[in-house]
């Protein structure tokens, strides 16, 4: 096991190096000049050149590459943002909180809406309640999240004025009040996955309700609620649980558009902004960090397999 782990960890290095080469290459192949963006539309060529020199972009590409990889791999330093004038690591960490909170809020609404709807629809299987709920789920799945976001703003912020239409206040600054900024965007990204989850829970629940042990439980005189929540739900949640894991990962990537619609200064918006202003170090940093998380997650999953399934052996 220890040998396997150390071997896997060692392969991380060439893998990340490869990612670094690709990230640097792809990012630098895009046309456009960050100095020109900072200098503005009326700038003269000399002004742009001055800013380019200050950014260190006047050096040759190989020199910049060696300099950058050295910093990343030997010092764990992702460099400084060209436009924001701050270390890339700091920039990314600053934006991680809004994105994470948004994803969590989305996950919260996914479960809050998805699980009870699924159970209710299953219990009232084939009744009008079931049909209404499942039609709602289909609508929830089909509505684009940014449009739903706008509808929510129209209703809750403009019509009723009970929730803010956009913005973000960090937990440190706003404490519990920062939640109120997350409700609408969280609902907007959570809705479609809630709809998906509701359909999963319903079908899984229906399967379980037809099983023999449920009939046995009912036959021995247990109360309906006990049968439903203690016996049926527990068994029915196994397939949806694996899906929830996937959905949460999707939520994190789905925040990009929602961050723009609700003006949340998160990681998704950072990436989009960095591309449009050609902030190379930030683009590279985000790619490297994302790749690192993916590789690490794969490793953890591989290890977990062994723990769950004893047939898997590490050689």
């Amino acid at each position, binding site marked *: 096991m220890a040998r396997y782990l150390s071997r896997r960890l060692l392969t991380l290095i060439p893998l990340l190096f490869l990612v670094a080469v690709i990230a640097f290459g792809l990012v630098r192949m895009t046309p456009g000049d*960050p100095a020109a963006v900072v200098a503005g539309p*009326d700038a003269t060529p000399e002004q742009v050149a001055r*800013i380019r020199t200050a950014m260190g972009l006047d050096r040759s590409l190989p020199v910049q590459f060696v300099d950058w990889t050295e910093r990343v791999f030997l010092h764990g330093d992702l460099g400084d943002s060209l436009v924001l*004038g701050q270390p890339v690591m700091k920039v990314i960490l600053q934006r991680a909180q809004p994105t994470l909170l948004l994803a969590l809020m989305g996950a919260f609404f996914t479960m809050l809406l998805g699980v009870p709807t699924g159970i209710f629809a299953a219990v009232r299987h084939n009744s009008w309640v079931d049909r209404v709920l499942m039609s709602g789920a289909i609508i929830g799945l089909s509505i684009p999240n940014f449009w739903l976001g706008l509808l929510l703003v129209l209703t809750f912020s403009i019509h009723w004025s009970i929730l803010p239409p956009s*913005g973000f206040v960090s937990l440190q600054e706003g404490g519990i009040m920062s939640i109120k900024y997350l409700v609408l965007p969280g609902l907007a990204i959570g809705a479609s996955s809630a709809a998906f989850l509701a359909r999963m829970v319903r079908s899984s629940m229906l399967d379980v309700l037809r099983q023999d042990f449920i009939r046995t439980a009912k036959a021995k005189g247990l109360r309906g609620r006990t049968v439903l929540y203690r016996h049926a739900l527990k068994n029915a949640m196994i397939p949806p649980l694996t899906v929830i894991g996937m959905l949460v990962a999707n939520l994190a990537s789905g925040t990009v558009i929602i961050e723009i619609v609700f003006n949340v200064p998160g990681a998704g918006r950072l990436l989009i902004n960095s591309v449009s202003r050609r902030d190379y170090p930030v683009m590279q940093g985000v790619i490297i960090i994302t790749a690192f998380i993916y590789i690490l997650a794969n490793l953890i999953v591989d290890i977990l397999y062994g723990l769950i399934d004893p047939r898997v052996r590490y050689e």
Partner: protein
Amino acid sequence: MKVAINTDLASVDMMWGTPNINRDVMGHVYEYLFTMSEKNTYIPMLAEKDMDISADGMTFTITLRQGVKFHNGADFTSADAVASLERWHRMTTRGKTIAANLDTMTAKDDHTVEMVFTKPNGGLLFAIGQYGGLAVMFPKDVVDKYYDTTAKEDKEIKDADAIGTGPYKLKEWVRDSSVTLVRNDNYTPRDEPSDGRGGKRWAYVDEIVFTPVQDPTTLLNGLVSGEFHISYASPPAQYDQINSDPNLVPVIIKPGSKAVAVFNKKKGIGTDMKLREAALAATNPQEVMAGTIDNDKFYACFASLAGKEWGDWYTEVGSDLYAQNNIDKAKQLLSESGYKGEKLRWITTKDYDYMYRSALVASKEWEKAGINVDLIVSDWPTVVTNRSKEDVYDIFSTGIGFEGDPLGTGAYTPSWPGWTTSPEITKAETALVTETDPAKRKKLWEDLQQGFYDEVPYIQFGEMYTLRATRKNVHNFTGRQDLMLWNVWLE
């Protein structure tokens, strides 16, 4: 007071880059020696009174106001003014071109600065007083701190040293999230009543927070719900909605910048003057602008390179060549040219909606005359890079504003992308630098505009106006192009 802006600042250092948002935010922190009045003339701001100009037009003496303090408590003296103007001279376009003939600049005493030129200088007051000239006053020690004496280069001033004399101080800039200014309690306003950007400046609100909001619908929702007090810029398509909301006030900002298409006059088919004239003849500006801007309150079509708001600079010279809308003449001109049906490569972007839409409509008109247009659409940074490469395009879209003086726009100079080398234009441009007599300068400007229509360095479609909006409880908000939030209060 909360203000929604469209993009974040690029820098707190006003001389570092030229995006308008930099100066519209930091213009509350930094002040100029002279500034613009309501009628866009130049009046003293940190200077005590008008400049003393010697009879030969070569020596300028500026007397500074006494008792002005920087945000760090230090007195503003002539040493600061000289250091700031030297930095301006080294770093900015206008500093370089207009002060090109500068001989000496000295602090005569604590509150007097003298500038001596080797030739008469006609544009100095404009250059240091106009908002876009960026000749703002820094403390001398900040200028020195950010000057690399070995490389002889100025570096970007960081947030902590963003110290000016203005009615507001920079409190905090959280990148991509907000810029917060707070009232400068030690500010001593001028005694004269407020006049344009000049006169008495009074900071009514304690704190101004600028929040970048990318999506215009999100911005409007924020304004409607009261999350923001002011929208820095909204799309004209939202005008009717804003106008019909009882809590909001739309403000149309004039003058604006012009939607234009600039020919590459260094290489390729754009070097053929007959082709450029043909394109001009085929253009119907009314139609182009109607297809570009959704609401006709937000554009105007006229020949003058300066709008009517600029007073004497407005001129109708060359009007007969603007808006010809004459396809037959265009065809005739094309047959006289060396054009053989090659693709005219037009680089444009959808990042600025007006650039793409004006290019689309105009190219359809030109195709009727027989010009083959190849519209190449990419994002704005790519256009900016490519427009400096003479091999990759024949024409590009951009916006050009008149900046208060003919010398304010780099677009007529040979070094700007598109490379305008017309003898007629360059001659007038050069003479404007040294001419000090206003009447003669006006005549030179007319010559320049005539040259513009004779040689067609670029095609001007029309002027576009910006829509700003405030909530009803915002008072004394002016329709000036440059954002001014002192003298504004909330109810």
